[in-house]
């Protein structure tokens, strides 16, 4: 029976100190199927896949590929066995081109021993055609959107002859459109006989795309299910051991709510001299969540960076609580705006600092955290403990480095730190990107309760489910312009999708360049 399985992992154990990342985990994957591995953050999914890809060595356990028992000592060995992996945080070299990245480690060389760039480019064009994944080989990776980066990663694995492709949270960073494309790619690859293993915690996607599901929880296997014979509810309850209801706090409507964040005619010119924002005008009022929906790279990043002062604006005004902050320093602006950036690793956290330091970071010189020229550690520690408790941050202690936490818990540090500030405005980008279901629900509930306390929230999200769950108003952005203001109660996903891709615009916004 076992020789039917292309991947057969048995009794895999991996301990980090006292933490049992994998505890007698079993995984059996059939050839040519799409197999989903689901579980909360920290359930051990990524560890298991790192073991399969040779990045981590198991303490105990048996791995068989195509029925043959193997020891996967390094990624090189995994590649030889036909295993490819697309990591959640892409492992691409930013300064290199698409072709250089895809061919890294396999560069074609000419007779003189020099790299044959033309051959490299034609090779990439060829495999790009073969798998129906369009890329521009000569473009630098640093200039690509996240969806394209992922495509490059997938092509990189396929180009090495991967028959088993592991994808860690492949849809966490994609727009709905890109997700659908990706799923089409998966199906095409399945037809070509490739085996696909996806790690995810988005159950609707699991239901839509997978053939079989393995559920992990706290480092243990909780069973393997056949997708067609199960339901999202069953998976969720196996994953979390309980049924969780939808978080929803009804908005408290207030008459004459004050505008908190007013942006008028904001334009930004990018480093490539192209207009990144074109006369963006919007207002976030007290006690509302205004969501900017849009395809990745439509100007959301530039908008956020302009508001917080990381980016020079070409023209326009930004008022916070009636005061023009467009000329103020980042530090001054942070007295008005709390800010959760889209990239928690690069911008939101100092990953080498401790959890505690990250919880007060940026606010360390404020209020009671300082005593003369010294840090006031009793107050700081009290605040840190409060935040860890209130935001359910799972960490062994406040002295652990932020790096050692799972993605969801890292995000809770950032969200906790920012929501604990008494600011009236919150700018929050992709709050639940790569965050597990439990933590996502928790963060969503926190945002709703902040809104009900009267905070004005500007939410940037590419996840339409999230947009519809949280927004009081939706502003759709396309190519640096706001193309529609919508009421989530009156529109469908599809309609928002049409605005997001530029297929539809609200004419009056374009003519006046604002609302």
């Amino acid at each position, binding site marked *: 029976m076992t020789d039917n399985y292309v991947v057969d992992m048995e009794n895999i154990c991996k301990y980090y100190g006292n933490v049992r990342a994998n505890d007698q985990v079993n995984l059996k994957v059939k050839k040519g199927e799409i197999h989903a591995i689901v579980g909360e953050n920290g359930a051990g999914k990524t560890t298991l896949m790192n073991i399969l*890809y040779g*990045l981590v060595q198991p303490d105990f356990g048996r791995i068989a590929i195509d029925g043959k028992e193997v020891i996967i000592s*390094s*990624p*090189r060995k995994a*590649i030889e066995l036909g295993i490819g*992996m697309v*990591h959640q945080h892409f*492992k*691409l*070299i*930013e*300064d*290199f081109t698409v072709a*250089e*990245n895809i061919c*890294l*480690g396999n*560069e074609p*060389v000419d007779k003189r*021993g*020099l*790299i044959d760039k033309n051959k490299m480019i034609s090779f990439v064009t060829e495999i790009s055609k073969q798998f129906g994944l369009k890329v521009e080989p000569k473009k630098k990776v640093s200039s690509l959107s996240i969806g394209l980066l992922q495509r490059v990663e997938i092509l*990189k694995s396929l180009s090495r002859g991967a028959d088993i492709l592991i994808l860690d949270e492949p849809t966490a960073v994609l727009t709905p459109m890109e997700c659908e494309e990706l799923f089409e790619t998966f199906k095409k690859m399945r037809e070509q006989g490739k085996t696909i293993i996806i790690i995810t915690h988005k159950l609707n996607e699991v239901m839509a795309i997978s053939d079989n599901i393995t559920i992990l929880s706290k480092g243990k296997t909780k069973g393997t299910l056949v997708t067609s014979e199960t339901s999202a509810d069953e998976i969720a309850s196996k994953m979390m051991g309980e049924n969780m209801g939808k978080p929803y706090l009804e908005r408290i409507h207030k008459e004459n709510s004050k505008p908190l964040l007013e942006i008028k005619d904001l334009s930004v010119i*990018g*480093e490539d001299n192209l207009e990144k924002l074109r006369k963006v005008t919007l207002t976030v009022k007290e006690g509302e969540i205004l969501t900017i929906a849009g395809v990745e790279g439509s100007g959301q990043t530039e908008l956020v960076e302009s508001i917080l*002062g*990381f*980016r*020079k604006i070409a023209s326009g005004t930004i008022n916070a609580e009636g005061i023009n902050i467009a000329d103020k320093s980042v530090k001054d602006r942070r007295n008005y705006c709390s800010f959760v950036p889209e990239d928690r690793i690069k911008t939101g956290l100092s990953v080498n600092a401790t959890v505690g330091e990250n919880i007060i970071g940026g606010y360390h010189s404020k209020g009671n955290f300082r005593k003369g020229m010294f840090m006031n550690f009793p107050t700081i520690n009290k605040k840190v403990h409060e935040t860890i408790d209130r935001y359910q941050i799972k960490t062994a202690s406040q002295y652990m480095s932020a790096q050692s936490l799972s993605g969801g818990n890292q995000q809770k540090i950032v969200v906790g730190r920012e929501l604990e500030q008494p600011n009236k405005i919150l700018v929050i980008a992709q709050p639940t990107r790569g965050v597990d279901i439990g933590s996502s629900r928790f963060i969503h509930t926190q945002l709703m309760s902040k809104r009900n306390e009267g905070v004005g929230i500007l939410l940037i999200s590419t996840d339409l489910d999230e947009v519809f769950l949280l927004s009081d108003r939706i502003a759709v952005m396309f190519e640096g312009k706001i193309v529609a203001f919508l009421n989530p109660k009156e529109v469908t996903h599809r309609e928002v999708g049409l605005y997001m891709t530029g297929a539809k615009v609200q004419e009056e916004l374009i003519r006046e360049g604002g609302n």
Partner: protein
Amino acid sequence: MSSFSIIFSPEILAATLRSMPPILLAGLAGIMTKRAGIENIGLEGLMLIGCFSGYTVNYLTESWILGILGGMIATTLIALVFGFFVIVLRSNKIIAGVAINSLGAGLSTYLLRMMFGVKGSFYDPRVQAIPRASFSGLKSIPLLDTIINNQSIIVWISIILALIINLILFYTRFGTYVRAAGEDEEALATSGINVKKIRFITIIFHGMLCGLGGAYLSTGYLTQFIENMSAGRGFIAMAAIAFSGAQPLRILGATGLFAFVESIAYRLQSINVPSYFALMTPYVVTVITLAITSHKGIKDKKGRRLV
């Protein structure tokens, strides 16, 4: 006018070429390690090792070529110590680099006293200078004859090495992996490349280049060993690396500038400029160029940011 003609004379250009190789070779060595993400600030110390061992082996074997090889091997061994700390033990690069600098200065001075029983400097007529090259075709052109003829072969070898290293870094697999190791070692590792191996090979190249530079100083540029004779050239090379953006072709220009200033410094002493001031010039120019280029560097890299 007369001082102008002293500074911009063919002799000065010849002197510039003569003083270029140590800075250029150390600079190329530094580019290699910087590109591989294991930047070594211990170039100065490595060159001193090269100076001493090059001179000593030359003295013992009475062969300039064995002297150079000895210098390169000894320097590479010390460079491998740096490599072991930084690549295997993952120690702090700066601290390891500082240690190499101290080691180079201390070890060469100590061995000089122990082996030859002299202090300050050592000279022996048995030591053979690295040969010089002349091109008979240029003899008839006085200007080129002065500048190009009668230069040490290392001058030309070091310039060719700059071209070769440029080729390696940007047109070969190995060079691609070196750059990838510096940009994102995890990405390289997941592509199935052994990052440690790439870095150790880089360290060997880098040691050989520093050793060649050092051996040239003590058996080509001069034919004696003087304590601390590298005189900050390893640090000037680091300035040149920053100045050139770690590009092997551009560092040719950068080291040319620094070598030019160094040559002028000697010349200035002969025209009533206080000698301390004159000797200071190369270092002052280094600081000024660095100030200018690093300012530009910030704009280049993070142009979209306000700061």
